[in-house]
């Protein structure tokens, strides 16, 4: 009998499997988040221009709908000491107009690895292995300078599928897929991890977008539309 699987569910299963082979556990946190975990602890201070980078849904009690899954980094480090390797496939929210590529609600894949000697080279290697396994075949990963309060250095992550078997639309094309960097020492110390001894990388990117690239889905709004015609096509 055929099984029907929502593409986000299937993608998250792939992510959990691929990353668990590399020693990463799944972690989660609340979707209604306080300012400390969503911004301040992540070195995005109040009234700082960096806050403009994420349009936020505010609640009357001063909490927010988390604008990214990064607060789970802080929550996890508050209760666990390194070595740490986690991924957070979770929902995030942005107060912005929607169109075929923008959605006010979306899934993000967050990753965090903290140890005494985790480097930017490990970030590159880890993501290369992930994209290779997720899209199938060989993948190149490229980093470009960027800025996020919670990482230093900060980078944008591009990938390029190079296998013969890659979908023609994606083959040999650089595609921006994530933001990443080395965890800012302030984030470590805000979370109770000693930045003199430990360092690590973090990354985050939209899961819908990865699904759209992989399966050729053209409209991000379908994922959360409740339309079963999407799920119906993802069958095994």
């Amino acid at each position: 009998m055929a099984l029907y699987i929502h593409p986000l569910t299937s993608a998250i299963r792939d992510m959990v499997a691929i990353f668990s082979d590399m020693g990463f556990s799944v972690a989660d946190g609340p979707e209604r988040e306080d300012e400390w975990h969503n911004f301040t602890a992540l070195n995005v201070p109040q009234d700082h221009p960096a806050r403009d980078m994420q349009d936020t849904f505010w609640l009357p009690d001063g909490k927010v709908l988390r604008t990214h899954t990064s607060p789970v980094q802080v929550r996890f480090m508050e209760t666990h000491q390194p070595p740490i390797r986690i991924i957070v496939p979770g929902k995030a929210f942005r107060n912005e107009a929607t169109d075929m590529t923008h959605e006010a609600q979306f899934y993000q894949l967050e990753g965090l690895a903290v140890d005494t000697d985790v480097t930017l080279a490990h970030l590159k290697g880890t993501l290369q292995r992930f994209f290779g396994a997720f899209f199938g075949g060989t993948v190149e990963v490229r980093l470009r300078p960027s800025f996020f309060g919670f990482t230093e250095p900060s980078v944008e992550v591009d990938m390029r599928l190079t296998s013969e078997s890659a979908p023609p639309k994606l083959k040999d094309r650089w595609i921006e897929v994530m933001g990443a960097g080395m965890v800012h020492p302030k984030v470590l110390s805000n979370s109770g991890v000693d930045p003199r001894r430990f360092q690590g990388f973090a990354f985050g990117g939209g899961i819908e977008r990865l699904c759209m690239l992989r399966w050729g889905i053209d409209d991000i709004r379908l994922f959360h539309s409740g339309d079963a015609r999407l799920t119906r096509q993802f069958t095994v």
Partner: protein
Amino acid sequence: MMVSYQWLQTFFDGKLPSPEKIAEALTFGAFEIETVEEKNDDTIIDVKVLPDRACYALSHRGIAKEIATLCDVPIMRDPLAKSRPEMLFTDRIHVATDEKRCAYYSAALIENVSVAPSPDWLRKQLEAIGQRSINNVVDATNYVMNEIGTPLHAFDAEKMGNGIVVRPAHEGERITILGGEEKVLTEAMTVIADGTNDVPLAIAGVKGGARAEVTNTTTRVVLEAATFHPTVTRKTAQVLNLRTDASKRFENGVSAALPLYGLEACATLIADIAGGKLAGIAEAGSAHVVAYKLGVSVAEVNRLLGTALNEKEVRAILTRLGLSHEKVENPRERLLEIAKEQLGKPYKYGASVSKDAPDRFDCSSFISWSAAQVGISMPRMVIDQCLFTETIAASAALPGDLIFAVSDPLKRKPFVFTKHETGEEVTHFNPMEESQEFMKGARIEGGVSHDGIYLGDGLVLHASSQKGEVIIENYETSGSFQHIVSFNRFFAVNQERLVVTVPPERLDLRIPQDLVEEIGRVHGYEHIAPTTLPSGRTTIIFNQRHRVMETVRKTLEELGYMEIMTYALIGEGEVTLANSLAPERAHLRASLVPAMQEALDKNYTNAPLLGGEPLKLFEIGTVFTHDSEFLSLALGVRAVGKRGEEKIKALLQEARSALALSFGVHESDIGAEVKNGILTCDLSSYVDSGVGGYPETARVQEVQYRPPSVFPFVLRDVALWVTAASADEVAEVIRGAAGTLLASLELFDTFAKNEKTSFAYHLVFQSNERTLSDNEVSEQMTRVESALKAKGWEIR
């Protein structure tokens, strides 16, 4: 920011690489490039400058510096390379500033100006980067801002007195801004007021007022350059909905070193294009900036980047970056030398490292500044310095280690501290027990309030509040070290370091990791080799929430349910957003039921495309009460017609039993049917309990995805008798004959009679481009039937 290629060229003697080459170098070395567009005889590059680099890069000079670094071409004209401009003062204008709102304010008086349209080159240059030309004086201010990054403003000196006061706005104060609009201000905003009558002339850092506008009749000009407070400027611009080129720069911070360069450049340009003579300048507040020192070791660079750079390579990169630096081979010895040179410097409680050092110190600013000189970054406050350094035995203390002490806890002293990121002032009380800046939650019981540098032989070098200066004394007899907390050692104090003197405009270089980023991006991230994380460092911790979701999904997927996902923001719920996009998305969902109801209705109209009846859906998601959130499940089943309700009951019962079995609980624990065909279940108790790994679940590989069509579908049936053929074989033939218009094929009936089997199929036709006509579909059906007959099968 719009950047002109021709403008950039003026900073270089040699011909610049092509605009495309520059865009590429910037993309991989510094900034995202939005567009590169040819415009008249210039090329305009739209550079996306993110908040960290705005302090220097929202200017052609800043971008030129980046090009010099990344393309390794020498910059020949750097307006900030010369020493601080020396300008004559005049007493014909007076300025005063509230330093909390504006740390430095300068104004220049220029007389005998002829306001006129700008010369062609200036008008074209501004228009090329999307700015409107106003007149030669205003254009000059705009030009200089785009050249070096410090905003300027010109007032008509005839329309104001000879004094300027920077002050908080009065609550409800009104000002008509350039362009004629009236704005109502609050005390949180800052104004530039006329010193003689207190009338506001401009909203500080945001927008000039109409009152002292420079017009064609203006002959005397007051030119302003200042450093308005980032947060105040940002909030003002937000509240007034007035984000201007100036406010964007101030909100990211403008170094106090820049305004004078701006004033001089602008006065020179005005003299050049509008005549006029500089009468002199006036200033208030302090433009003094202590050179910021930052150090890294080559080992630290490699440790973060995963590279194998050597010292020569790192130093070459620092040189390309224009960062002057020196190698400190023995930080401990050098620290002692530098610290001893400060003997006799006056004590000032709460002295600022960035403004007062090395002229005045308190105990911890003395330590912080001295350590910075040898490339060791230290927190500013005593408590954090104590936590940041490593405690050692008193007997092991060497010269260059630290001694921490605590004063009488009953004599608590307020300590006003300015936060680096926001400029916000916070008052703490000494002695402090809890980390303020370094490590949240870290404590030293009993507190700590004083520190000094151990010199050996019982001597300590410290900034003494009791003696009012930096002194050396025996710590055992010193009044400041009566209660010793600990002896501590700097981390890596013996490791050689490269110590960089940060250029004043580079407010983005504040921690060693900032330097590592500079080195990494100039070295080139493409040269960092992907490396696999070592295995065996962690063990997998199974996540409860994920386990529960996967258990539910597996159970229901295997019963043929389709998972849907819907919006967490809906039209009803206990919690209302403070800022919503629209009323139908203004609440956090308190239940998955309304969305499931809607999904059943909507999807039921597409039932033939979804495998026909019964329609079986589920959703797992977070729902919200006024003070909490939890994981919930909704199941939805829709079947109509003969015995529809019975079918629904049976299906829900089946799902309940299966879920109960999966979780090892009683069926009654699996929620309840809340309305016809919808069952909901709070999953939080399963998240909070239970153990074990994740269930084995199916994953989708290849899919020939077809976007859902907005056009109507047409349903047709075919039934046939076959002998010794499987349903799959038949389906294959139907698909082959029906072509791409077949959107769904569903076997809905099978029975056997004698040796023959009957299969009946629903065929759903649909196009993504148009509404299908009846004829078109009939043609497809004829083709299908012919193909089936050709196989020798009998259409019923």
